[in-house]
């Protein structure tokens, strides 16, 4: 395994209480694979990603427990200095908003070069050539001529391409993409997703894709981790999640999306209520107030994540009981 995450717990201690942003998340990923972490706002999916590289603002945040094994070593035990050698180099991240992730006062060329020079001892001239190559690779036309342009001269889609070029500058083993296309239009989203897919094949890297969009995930992911209120609720391969979901949350999520391939005017399935506040998570199974199948036990006991089929995990009392009996 390239990356193995065990029982990760990240809490935030704020004035109003403890925010249990990530509460016992485990997963693993190998080369050439894409893992998607799917969840709604406040599900803890982004904090999970940030925790992997210890990028949690401390205080108020704190990684309470868990292990992140990268090539067999627990990087949570690494010193800040050693972590820096991994961040951006072996494991790179791209974020949702391409408008704020680039520094407006530096040129595009400088920023990509900076990413290269941080981790590689190469002369400036070679870094510059590499920058041109990277920008060409991510599909920026006349890349050489645009090195001295500033971020505001690029469109949103182009900026996201630059971000990807920066992330790829050190040929990382793992690329973590946090909602990489959410801020973009669909035709641009299609461009970026295609690019990401091609690049993954080319580099044989691993991708962790964080998103709320079940459509984006369907075409890209090999395995999916569904999160709700900081906890993993279902973890399985892509086909199982889409065609045989077991957790009531995954199930109703699948039924509640509008889709192009379904004709109209049927009432959508919907989940009552809203995702809970992470500061005031419901007792027992955190989904129980919104769950159609909830019974007494769901109010009282937190369900464990159990392997119900080889490689298919769910955390639901109802499913677990049904499978036992």
């Amino acid at each position, binding site marked *: 395994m390239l990356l193995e995450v065990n029982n990760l717990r990240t809490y935030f201690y704020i004035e109003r209480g403890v925010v249990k942003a990530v509460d016992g998340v485990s997963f693993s990923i190998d080369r050439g694979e894409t893992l998607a972490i799917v969840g*709604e*706002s406040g599900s803890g999916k982004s904090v999970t990603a940030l925790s992997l590289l210890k990028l949690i603002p401390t205080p108020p945040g704190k990684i309470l427990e868990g292990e992140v094994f990268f090539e067999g070593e627990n990087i949570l035990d690494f010193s800040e200095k050693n972590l820096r050698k991994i961040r951006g180099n072996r494991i790179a991240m791209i974020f949702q908003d391409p408008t704020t992730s680039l520094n407006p006062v530096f040129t595009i060329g400088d920023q990509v070069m900076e990413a290269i020079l941080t981790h590689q001892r190469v002369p400036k001239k070679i870094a510059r050539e590499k920058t041109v190559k990277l920008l060409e690779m991510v599909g920026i*036309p006349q890349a050489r001529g645009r090195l001295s342009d500033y971020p505001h001269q690029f*469109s949103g*889609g*182009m900026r996201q391409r630059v971000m990807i070029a920066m992330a790829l500058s050190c040929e990382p083993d793992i690329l973590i993409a946090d909602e990489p296309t959410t801020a973009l*239009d*669909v*035709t*641009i*989203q*299609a*461009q970026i*997703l*295609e690019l990401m897919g091609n690049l993954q094949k080319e580099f044989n890297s691993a991708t962790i894709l964080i998103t*709320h*969009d*079940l*459509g*984006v*995930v*369907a*075409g890209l*992911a090999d395995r999916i981790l569904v999160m709700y209120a900081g906890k993993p609720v279902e973890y399985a391969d*892509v*086909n199982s999640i*889409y065609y045989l979901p077991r957790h009531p949350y995954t199930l*109703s*999520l*699948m039924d*509640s*999306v*509008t*889709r*192009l*391939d*379904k*004709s*109209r*005017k049927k*009432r*959508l*399935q*919907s*989940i*009552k209520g*809203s*995702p809970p506040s992470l500061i005031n998570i419901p007792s027992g199974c955190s989904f129980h107030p*919104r769950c159609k199948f909830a019974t007494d036990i769901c109010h009282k006991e937190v369900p464990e994540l159990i392997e119900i089929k080889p490689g298919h995990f769910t955390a639901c009392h109802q499913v677990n009981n049904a499978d036992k009996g």
Partner: protein
Amino acid sequence: MDMLLRIENLIKYFPIKRGVMFQKEVGRVHAVDGINFHINKGETFGLVGESGCGKTTTARLILRLIEPTSGTVSFKGENILTYDKNKMRETRREIQVIFQDPFASLNPRMTVGDIIGEPLLVHEVANGFERKKRVKELLEMVGLESEYARHYPHQFSGGQRQRIGVARALALNPKLIICDEPVSALDVSVQSQIINLLAELQEKLGLTYLFIAHDLGVVRHLCDRVGVMYLGKIVELANNNELYNAPHHPYTQSLLSAVPIPDPKKEKKKKRIILKGDVPSPVNPPSGCRFHTRCPIAQEICSRVEPKLREIMENQWTACHFAKPNPIPVD
């Protein structure tokens, strides 16, 4: 069928000005550039397009929040652009709006009761106890508890806030509601609640919707007819099924093919049309057909002659020189 709203040759150019004291016009944003459509009573008309295509500007023009450069907006057969202040104020009772951002669309310093009751107060249709009663009624109609009237917006989740926005729009019993991206800021599990609510209300109250969205899935689910906008123009306009099953404009086709489907097998089989480049600037829109710079099947004529929106089939209007079902060949 009764026509409720009719838009003819609507144009809105925003001037770009430079200078501090004496401003000079240095250019124009061609936000909406001569669009035509109508909405029948009781139907849901969808207006889709990517950011910057002019769909929200169209909504604001119909609401007369901004004045058009030229064109007409006829509501119940009369051009409301000629109305004076008082007449327009009366008309506003019949045309209401629901906004995209449930966090910015409610005044944080007013209670929910005051927000929903404001239209009643402004139009002096109900006072005191009467108003409170109506607010309660409206809250229940959108699926909220009536005690919520004394709370403030920040105490609610996104979905609940959007319900409050819907209640405010319903307060004056409008005929037409303009929904400007009403679900795109919400979580997936909450989106479906609001979509269902809008559908129920339409059935119960006989409402007409102009539904503006970039999410083609939502529009597919909710709309009777759909107009597709690109750079200030309507490029295709058709009934829901026709548009989704057999788009005649290459832009519509590529837009539809770009939308990911939450189904891994279909998704992996799907041939996607990837458009090159970005949407050009509306300040200097391309000559001829505005889509020609990105169109996979563009020919020489496309950069010279602007295609007119013409009826290709019954109820299917397309603005393309080479309009035919699924015009871009996909292998």
